[in-house]
């Protein structure tokens, strides 16, 4: 043992000499990390403001946050036309897909921030630390979207998740909130461990953590490392599937969505799903775009698995949502179902990579985020005087008090069902189109059937808020504040504008 230490100095010298000769410093492109840096630094700035002005209102932090997010958005948009580039070793990849996802994440975070302050005050948990944590969480998802390196993917995932564990439990006086935080934390860490084990296997089989390298650098004659690779991929998909809430790794979703504060649920439903789907896209896309023998073998392996996962995810999510009574829980199951729809688009791309790009996934994520964040923003209005009720009965009579919010809620529900002319419809149309173009007719039909099933519970939510009066559990709701009105209006307008301005939007966002 000790002799190891003694030997090591001489050997280390030789090693270092060898490395120094071949050492190339990594390319550094500051612009490519600018969005993430801006978001992170805004968080730090918010923390400093919180420290400097204790026990005051958080308006300054909210403002700073929004300004910082806007700056980050501008910095993303400024790079839209730029060529694809990997910098900081292979840690940061700037491409169209990543930039588009980053922009949607910034949008989601901004929308969440806008309605959070009023909600947190109504719930009496208006801690200033919320905003920095939210921003850091968003930065984690942004990191996941802009890398092909599994190390960065893992780090981004953890940044996203750990901040969300805290946020889920931030309503400290509430057992539900703490319970959801604990569940989320334990299951999330458990899934992370599997994800890591999967990464370790992929690394062991290929000697690299870079996805392109993994997909191409494999020795086809070697049985044992082939199995290593396949198991690694399965465990990796396990971890990412957990984050994106695919069946059978979905059980945490409704519990956590229900227990967490509603604004956190909104970010969780949109932001963490976007991050997970983006990462999944990267992983699967690597094996599709690298046209090696092995990549095709990999596809033969995971395609049927994900095919059934997609069917299960759509069906289970929708069927279980039917019997739920809590709006946040319903939206939790609905997020599972929508993850299934997105998976169909991903599979279609994998089947037919030349014809089908990432446009559908990006568009669907944008549409899904707008409608889900908007819906949860409306649901957050049930919070007053430190209490909150999110059962369907709690929404009864909301139309009397908040007609504008209810109109928006109807729009979001119509979009979630997929009634034209809303973004949700356009997204489904694109998924159908992709599925038909790549010969996934079965999935298209399952999706159609599921859309019909989903009508029941989405309409139930709209009905609870707009139709029913009797048995209202709650005679008052939070007053409409400008932030909440802004979120509702932006989301509702966005749901329509995504369709009306489809052409300029997608040309700008996706580049085709």
């Amino acid at each position: 043992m000790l002799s190891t230490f003694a030997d090591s100095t001489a050997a280390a010298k030789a090693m270092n000499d060898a490395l120094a000769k071949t050492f190339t410093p990594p390319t550094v492109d500051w612009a490519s990390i600018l969005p993430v840096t801006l978001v992170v630094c805004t968080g730090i700035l918010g923390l400093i403001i919180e420290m400097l002005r204790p026990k005051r209102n958080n308006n300054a932090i909210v403002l700073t946050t929004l300004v910082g997010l806007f700056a980050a958005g501008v910095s993303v948009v400024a790079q839209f036309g730029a060529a694809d580039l990997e910098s900081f070793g292979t840690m940061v990849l700037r491409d169209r897909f990543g930039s588009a996802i980053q922009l949607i994440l910034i949008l989601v975070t901004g929308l969440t921030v806008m309605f959070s302050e009023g909600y947190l005050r109504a719930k009496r948990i208006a801690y200033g630390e919320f905003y920095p944590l939210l921003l850091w969480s968003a930065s984690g998802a942004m990191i996941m979207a802009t890398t092909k390196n599994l190390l960065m993917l893992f780090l981004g995932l953890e940044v996203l998740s750990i901040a969300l564990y805290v946020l889920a439990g931030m309503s400290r006086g509430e057992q539900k909130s703490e319970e959801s935080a604990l569940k989320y934390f334990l299951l999330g860490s458990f899934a992370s461990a599997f994800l890591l084990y999967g990464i370790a296997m992929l690394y062991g089989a290929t000697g690299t953590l870079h996805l392109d390298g993994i997909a191409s650098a494999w020795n086809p004659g070697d049985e044992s490392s082939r199995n290593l690779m396949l198991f690694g991929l399965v465990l990796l998909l396990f971890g990412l599937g957990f984050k994106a809430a695919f069946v059978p790794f979905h059980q945490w979703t409704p519990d956590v969505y229900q227990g967490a504060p509603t604004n956190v649920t909104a970010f969780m439903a949109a932001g963490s799903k976007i991050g997970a789907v983006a990462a999944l896209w990267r992983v699967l896309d690597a094996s599709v775009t690298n046209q090696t023998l092995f990549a095709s073998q990999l596809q033969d392996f995971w395609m049927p698995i994900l095919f059934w996962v997609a069917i299960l995810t759509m069906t289970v999510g929708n069927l279980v949502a039917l019997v739920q009574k809590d709006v946040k829980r319903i939206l939790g199951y609905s997020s599972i179902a929508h993850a299934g729809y997105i998976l169909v688009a991903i599979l279609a791309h994998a089947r037919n990579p030349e014809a089908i790009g990432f446009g559908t996934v990006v568009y669907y994520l944008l549409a899904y985020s707008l409608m889900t964040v908007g819906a949860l923003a409306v649901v957050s209005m049930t919070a007053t005087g430190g209490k909150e009720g999110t059962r369907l009965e709690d929404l009864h009579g909301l139309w009397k008090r908040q007609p504008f919010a209810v109109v928006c809620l109807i729009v979001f529900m119509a979009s979630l069902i997929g009634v034209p002319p809303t973004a949700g419809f356009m997204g489904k149309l694109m998924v159908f189109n992709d599925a038909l173009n790549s010969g996934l007719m079965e999935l298209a039909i399952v999706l159609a059937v599921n859309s019909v099933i989903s009508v029941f519970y989405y309409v139930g939510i709209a009905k609870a808020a707009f139709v029913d009066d009797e048995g209202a559990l709650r005679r008052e709701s939070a007053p409409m504040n400008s932030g909440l009105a802004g979120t509702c209006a932006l989301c509702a307008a966005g749901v329509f504008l995504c369709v009306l301005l489809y052409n300029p939007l997608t040309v700008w966002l996706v580049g085709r």
Partner: protein
Amino acid sequence: MTGNNLADYLTLGLIMFSIGAVGVIVRRNPIVIFMCIELMLNAVNLTFLAFARFTPTTAALADRAESFMSGQMMVVFVMAVAAAEVAVGLGIIMAIYRLRNEIDIDEMNLLKG
């Protein structure tokens, strides 16, 4: 000691990982569950280091250096992640204990459909 096979390390890692996974499922105390998760992370670390040492690539030295360095780097960052996770996780456990004076995972049933 250098005579060990890669398979020996991997097997040790696998056994630890499985024991950790069993623990996560069967135990009811969140702190113990969390410890089991730490056990799993360490098993993964061991796997990473073993693979880094027995790295399979036959490429040039620069690539190989990249290859066996990335495994170690992964371990470094897993440790950082574990540290942050512990801070947050124990914070959640403390908060929940303060609310209800017990932390049995089976008693957590407020969230139901």
